[in-house]
């Protein structure tokens, strides 16, 4: 048996999914935070059930000829029941999706979620009346606190086994007539198997690009007859047919809302007051600078305090190991590599990674990110994008992989391409570790800040150039701003753990293994040919010791590796005793800009194709060389 969780963005799908899946899908407080669907097996009343979490969708209308992931799944995949998660505080709008789901002719039950939020806004919903209006079971829930979920899944199981399909509510007469006419035209067509003709008829009248392509692709002659019906509808109403149909659904949804809701005095508190400052035209911008500034200085402050004692401890361990095993023997080299790899992960990467991930999760969960998009919209227009692109770019400071994946929330192909390319340039947490671990730690936080600002300048220039070169229109910003919310400790921990687990299970073993391999290569004098090969770049252009050549090669696997490998290649954690400030700066600049890591390249290729990915990767090397050479010369001039 398979249940599908469907609902509008921010309705709490992932929270409900997590309650059965045990934190495997991360939640965030901005629309479109889940871009692909996730499946889990759950045990409900002794039965094993598959639960599918679809990405949030406002409507079953696709904006492109390629259907959104949620729409595609609902139309094509087999499932037994739809659990429609409805945001009780936005009942009218949420019901517009419900009305479309009901038309699919499959069993539907409603999780009336965020009941606490609705109550706070003074919205009292009679859920039994709602169930009666729609002819489907309604279970009130507060997913965040786990209220009502047991009952929801029990009801889902019961309803799925009865398998009674809902009757869609009727629209106004003209729309109903038009739907019946189109349904008669497409009767017996098999291009959308298992989908009621009434649903398909509605989509054709609304001009849904995906359904239109499927139907007209097979029977092009039908287009004219459907257009005739649409024209009649347009004549009767004076609006375009798609507006009439969606307007009619809107009217039904709000009529249902009016019948089941009673309004009381809303209790608006700190959320409203905070928003007045955060979104204000005078205070919004300065507050943004303050918030991001506080974020980065907190990460640096906390990271530095954890790092120092850990580095000391590992230095002592290294000395002890060296005393035990002779340094020039193979065992000594392996033991030393092992300790360096361990130290790199625990003492250098984690101190900065952990506070960074927590901070990013706080920004996501409070709902500040959409506000950031609102404030930065006019700035983003200057580089040919719009505010929504800020979301992937900010995620890029965490990790480029989810950042590039989340470009799917953008409507136009052009915006997706540019944003994905720019996101790969954003210093991810791995690169942040290098910036903090080298430049901030040895040269001071001002220099680190300088690198971030320089990075933003480069991104602005690249964005402007790409926006001029690529064709296609950008539709502009249309973004829901969800209510601010206090971050929930459990979600924060879960989200941080999700990324951290990836580091511990995948990156760290890789760090240790690479560290040992590099040690052995050096012991066998095998690293020298590679270092020699790279020396025109490392020594001549960048003015670095030849030994860093290998670290740059390892850095393509994971960017954190460059830092740990640097420690290994130079043979000490006291990097400042071997490299000058100028060399540290040049090295860091190069690492920040050159080729994104392998994982990023793979996602980028899936998103923009191999041709563009190769182009971007080659281009990053050019940018990295130009910037690090400029940094090298600039530093010499400044000091």
């Amino acid at each position, binding site marked *: 048996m398979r249940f599908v969780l469907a609902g509008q963005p921010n309705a709490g799908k992932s929270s409900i999914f997590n309650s059965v899946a045990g934190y495997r899908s991360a939640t965030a407080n901005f629309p479109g935070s889940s871009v692909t669907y996730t499946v889990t097996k759950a045990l409900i009343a002794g039965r094993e059930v598959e639960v599918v979490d679809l990405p949030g969708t406002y*409507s079953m209308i696709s904006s492109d000829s390629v259907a959104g992931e949620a729409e595609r799944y609902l139309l094509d995949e087999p499932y037994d029941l739809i659990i429609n998660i409805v945001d009780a505080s*936005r009942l009218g709008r949420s019901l517009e999706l419900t009305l479309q789901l009901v038309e699919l002719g499959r069993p539907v039950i409603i999780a009336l979620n965020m009941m606490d939020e609705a109550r706070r806004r003074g919205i009292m919903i009679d859920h039994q009346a709602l169930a009666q209006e729609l002819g489907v079971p309604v279970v009130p829930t507060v997913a965040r606190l786990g209220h009502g979920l047991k009952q929801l899944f029990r009801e889902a199981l019961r309803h799925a086994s009865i398998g009674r399909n809902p009757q869609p509510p009727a629209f106004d007469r003209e729309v109903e007539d038009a739907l019946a006419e189109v349904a008669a035209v497409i009767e017996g067509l098999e291009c959308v198997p298992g989908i009621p003709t009434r649903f398909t008829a509605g989509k054709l009248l609304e001009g849904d690009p995906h359904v239109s392509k499927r139907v007209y692709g097979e029977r092009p002659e039908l287009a004219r007859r459907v257009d005739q019906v649409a024209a009649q509808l347009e004549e009767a109403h004076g*609006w375009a047919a798609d*507006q009439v149909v969606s*307007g009619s659904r809107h009217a039904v949804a709000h009529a249902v809302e009016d019948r089941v809701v009673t309004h009381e005095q809303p209790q608006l508190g700190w959320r409203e007051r905070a928003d007045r400052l955060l979104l204000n035209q005078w205070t919004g911008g300065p507050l943004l600078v303050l918030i991001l500034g506080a974020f980065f200085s907190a990460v640096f402050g906390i990271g530095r305090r954890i790092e120092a004692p850990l580095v000391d401890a590992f230095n002592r361990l290294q000395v002890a190991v060296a005393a035990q095993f002779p340094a020039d023997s193979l065992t000594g080299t392996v033991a030393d590599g092992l300790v360096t790899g361990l130290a790199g992960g625990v003492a250098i990467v984690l101190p900065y990674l952990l506070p960074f991930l927590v901070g990013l999760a706080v920004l996501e969960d409070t709902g500040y990110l959409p506000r950031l998009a609102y404030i930065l919209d*006019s700035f983003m*227009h200057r580089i040919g994008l719009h505010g929504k692109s800020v979301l992937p770019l900010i995620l890029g400071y965490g990790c480029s992989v989810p950042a590039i994946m989340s470009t799917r929330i953008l409507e136009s192909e052009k915006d997706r391409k540019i944003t994905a390319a720019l996101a790969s340039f954003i210093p991810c947490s791995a690169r942040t570790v290098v910036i903090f671990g080298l430049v901030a730690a040895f040269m001071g936080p001002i220099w680190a800040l300088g690198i971030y600002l320089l990075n933003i300048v480069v991104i602005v220039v690249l964005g402007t150039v790409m926006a001029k070169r690529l064709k296609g229109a950008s539709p502009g910003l249309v*973004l829901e701003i969800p209510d601010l919310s206090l971050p929930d400790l459990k979600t924060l921990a879960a989200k941080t753990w999700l990324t951290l687990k990836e580091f511990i299970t995948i990156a760290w073993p890789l760090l240790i293994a690479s560290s040992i391999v590099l040690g052995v290569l050096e012991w066998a004098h095998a690293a020298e040919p590679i270092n020699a090969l790279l020396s025109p770049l490392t020594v001549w252009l960048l003015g670095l010791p030849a030994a860093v050549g290998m670290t740059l090669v390892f850095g393509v696997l994971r960017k954190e590796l460059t830092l740990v490998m640097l420690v290994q290649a130079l043979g000490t954690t006291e990097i400042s005793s071997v490299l000058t400030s100028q060399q540290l700066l040049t090295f860091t600049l190069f690492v920040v800009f050159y080729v994104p890591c392998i994982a990023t390249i793979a996602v980028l290729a899936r998103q923009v194709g191999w041709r563009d990915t190769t182009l971007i990767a080659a281009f990053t090397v050019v940018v990295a060389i130009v910037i690090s050479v400029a940094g090298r010369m600039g530093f010499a001039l400044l000091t």
Partner: protein
Amino acid sequence: MMTLDTVGIRRQARVIMIDGGHRVRSHLNTLGIHIGDWLTVVQRAPFRGPVLVEINGTRVALGRGIANKVQVDMDGVLEPLSGSEERWGTEH
């Protein structure tokens, strides 16, 4: 008749027409913005930034380009935003 991007903060307006292509319309429709709906302009970002509107209990940010395509009617309404302490006009 005027366009949404010219409506002042805390003013209410009613959507009369949505210009622009099918995509713009369906995009606004999916977010619950339809012809005939009342909305309140909550904030306007500086430097020709987006307009923040409250509509059917939801807040939506609309870029100026899009707001320029939404034709609204004010019907002479000068009501302050509900729940707001500040009064619009000259009471003091």
